[in-house]
């Protein structure tokens, strides 16, 4: 149970406070409701590039990190397709510094040319390090546009291509800031050795004079129901074959999301899971195989990914995966197995309460979903999913017409690569 108080400033900034006196630290998490899905298709990767620029100084704080490190704090951020999340941890006694820093960059970012030049390069190196220069690193750049044809989830957060980042201009930066970075579009959570009263005072002091703005409604193109199987194969220089199958599924608040999450746990969470037991250990077709959700807010993707061993053909490997999905579509999961994956959900939620930063991020995320209180209802929601709901979800999700398959074929994958 993560307790919290909530108040809203007159400019629209929502503030949540979680008091945890057992730590000497405080975590300040600010979530901006803007992600890669809000980008222009011709300028992708921008929300993430912008996140880098938020560390490039603001009107009264030439160097964000320096000012924070001086008081014993640390900071970082991440961007995904749905939102951008900034966080600071620091000794609670120095909490006010975080308010100073966060409010200043919300009020007036510096828009420094030098920062834009450098961060464009840094993000291009990040693009290479995480996507282009890794085996299978391009998978998401290929799988997303295969599965999504209309919704902006069709591009990855890092962007479609290096060129989009290289061409980012200062005027784009300014208009992005003006459009999305304002108090009404942000959720601030303060957790740790703090009191709601102190936080309220500091929030009023530092954030209240930042002008509020009405946020335009989001109108994203929604994906049409997929009606036939999609498939792309790349024969390329990778060390081993790899299969990705993506299925469309419900949005984050749908019952199907919870069912799908439990299905993915049944398939591949822990070493007792079905795919691991049956395809890795028993039939010995795969070196590794996993099932997981991308976890997006709008209707998302259920992914099954596996690397077949060298002697196994792609056809045989795919058939084995589909075989397991077919079992989920045709046979109700036994109570015991359902109980098992629900127990794991419960213990994972409990362990996440060990960290104030995790708690702060979770509260912000659920507040974005509509109400931070949903966090404390999660376990009950998972508990309420029945075996018949799982069966129904499996039937809807795991069909050929709903699948997008991406195959990497290793150029030298000929079954005799183990010669010493």
């Amino acid at each position, binding site marked *: 149970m993560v307790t919290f108080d909530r108040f809203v400033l007159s400019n629209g900034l929502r503030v949540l406070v979680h008091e945890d006196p057992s730590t000497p630290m405080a975590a300040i998490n600010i979530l901006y409701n803007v992600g890669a899905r809000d980008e222009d298709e011709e300028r992708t990767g921008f929300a993430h590039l912008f996140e880098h620029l938020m560390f490039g100084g603001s009107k009264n704080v030439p160097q964000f990190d320096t000012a924070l490190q001086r008081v014993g704090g640390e900071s970082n951020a991440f961007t995904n397709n749905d939102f951008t999340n900034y966080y600071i941890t620091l000794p609670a006694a120095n909490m006010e510094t975080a308010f100073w820093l966060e409010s200043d960059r919300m009020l007036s970012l510096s828009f420094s040319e030098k920062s834009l030049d*450098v961060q464009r390069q840094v993000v291009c*190196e990040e693009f290479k390090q995480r996507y282009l220069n890794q085996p299978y690193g391009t998978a998401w750049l290929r799988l997303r546009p295969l599965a999504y044809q209309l919704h902006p989830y069709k591009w990855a957060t890092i962007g479609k291509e290096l060129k989009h980042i290289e061409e980012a201009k200062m005027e784009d930066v300014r208009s992005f800031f003006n459009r999305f970075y304002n108090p009404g579009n942000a959720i601030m959570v303060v957790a740790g050795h703090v009191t709601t009263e102190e936080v309220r005072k500091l929030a009023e002091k530092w954030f209240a004079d930042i002008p509020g703005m009405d946020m335009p409604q989001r109108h994203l193109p929604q994906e049409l129901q997929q009606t036939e199987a999609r498939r792309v194969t790349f024969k390329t220089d990778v060390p081993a074959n790899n299969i990705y199958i993506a299925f469309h599924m419900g949005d984050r608040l749908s019952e199907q999301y919870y069912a799908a999450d439990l299905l993915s746990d049944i398939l591949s*969470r822990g070493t007792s899971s079905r795919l691991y037991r049956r395809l890795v250990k028993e039939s010995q077709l795969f070196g590794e195989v996993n099932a997981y959700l991308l976890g997006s807010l709008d209707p998302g993707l259920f992914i099954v990914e596996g690397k077949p061993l060298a002697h196994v053909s792609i056809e045989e490997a795919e058939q084995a995966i589909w075989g397991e999905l077919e079992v989920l579509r045709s046979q109700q999961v036994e109570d015991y197995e359902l109980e098992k994956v629900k127990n794991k959900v419960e213990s994972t939620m409990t362990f996440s309460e060990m960290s104030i930063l995790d708690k702060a991020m979770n509260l912000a995320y659920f507040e974005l979903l509509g109400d931070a209180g949903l966090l404390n209802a999660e376990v009950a929601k998972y508990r309420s999913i029945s075996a018949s709901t799982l069966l129904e979800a499996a039937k809807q999700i795991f069909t050929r017409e709903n699948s997008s398959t991406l195959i990497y074929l290793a150029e030298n994958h000929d079954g005799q690569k183990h010669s010493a």
Partner: protein
Amino acid sequence: MDRSIAPDYNEIDRFDLISPQYERWANGMDVFVFDGGEQELLRIEWIFENHYLEGKSPIVNLALSSQLLEGTHSMSSAEIAEKVDFYGAFLRPEYSFDHTSLVLFTLTKHLGKVLPIVREVLQQAVFPENELQTYIRNNKHSLGISLRKNDFVARRLFNKAIFGSDPYGFAPVESDFDTLRREDLQRLYQQQLCPANCKLFVAGKIAREVMPLVRDHFDDLWGGKTMLPSRSQVAERSFLHSVDAGKLIYEEREGALQSAIRLGSLFIKRSHPDFPAVQLLNTILGGYFGSRLMTNIREDKGYTYGIGSGIGSLQHAAFFTIATEVGVEVVGPTLKEIEKEIKRLKEEPLEADELSLVKNYINGTILGSLENVFSHADKFKQVYFQGLDNSYYDYNFQVLRNSIPMDVMETANKYLDFDKMVKVIVGKY
């Protein structure tokens, strides 16, 4: 309100560390209990110092840890996995330079159900042949994939160049896996995973029933039949300098967009009186986001997504390392800038302002790393396995507080020598 004026701040003047309850049990096991936190959960670690079978490669040690959960006299691999997962617990073996461990995370309410599983694993593992063959096959497969990652390869080459043929430098190749024999795993299991070689760390909210339960499973019923090898059986491991000191090791990768760079040398251990000083130096150079290397090579030049340095303090040795991945066209300039930053530290005293910032930053991260009872246990382990105790942190705090810019310069001159560092480049140069 004048936003250009930073709010006042407080310097951190103390850390309240949780000291463990210590006991030695009759079977020779050392037990450390950390009580704290509100959540009804526990982390229990059984930590065994690594032993090596004479004439055998450390691949046996790697395999031992991976195969621990693959079967006991009465439970198959599948049954072990099933039971652990059913209780929502996490049980995993870990293998590091010095230790083989089994780590359990569990809700306290299921402790009585999961401890018997752990007991079986630690007392009656059988290492089934078919599981070993699966392990061999899958690890050869995944090694093939990892070897295509430049940073993975760079780390292997680096360890080898620093530690040579010592187990610390061991990096398995495919054929090593083929040498694995079940009998060797069993032998090592008997020799190494015995109570006398076990340190037990229990952390969490220690309700009254917790320790009696643990004791029931691991004291009385886990006899001391096995013996530690005598001193003379343990080969003396000494490290005077990096095996390939000063060498440039280059592995070319066709079509690379980035090169992984790793450089460094043998270093001093945490038990050395200068350790707090070198840690301060390391932080300034590459140990945090605002470090000299990050500021110059990422935030000024944009050569990389990240660059950092670190000190690994092991039981028998220590090493210093700088690591990054950079665009292939800027490998040379990156090396030059690294050299320049080291030179600057040796020749120019840093500004008092930078020094005080780094001191505050370090104290803040120490405070932040004490946020829950698990991290208190981790802090203790960090010093304990180096033959120290929590008073190290007071000493560290004092050294930090008294450090002046000249001290940092002296430490840099004493411990950093770019020319003698091993330099590994994987990609294009």
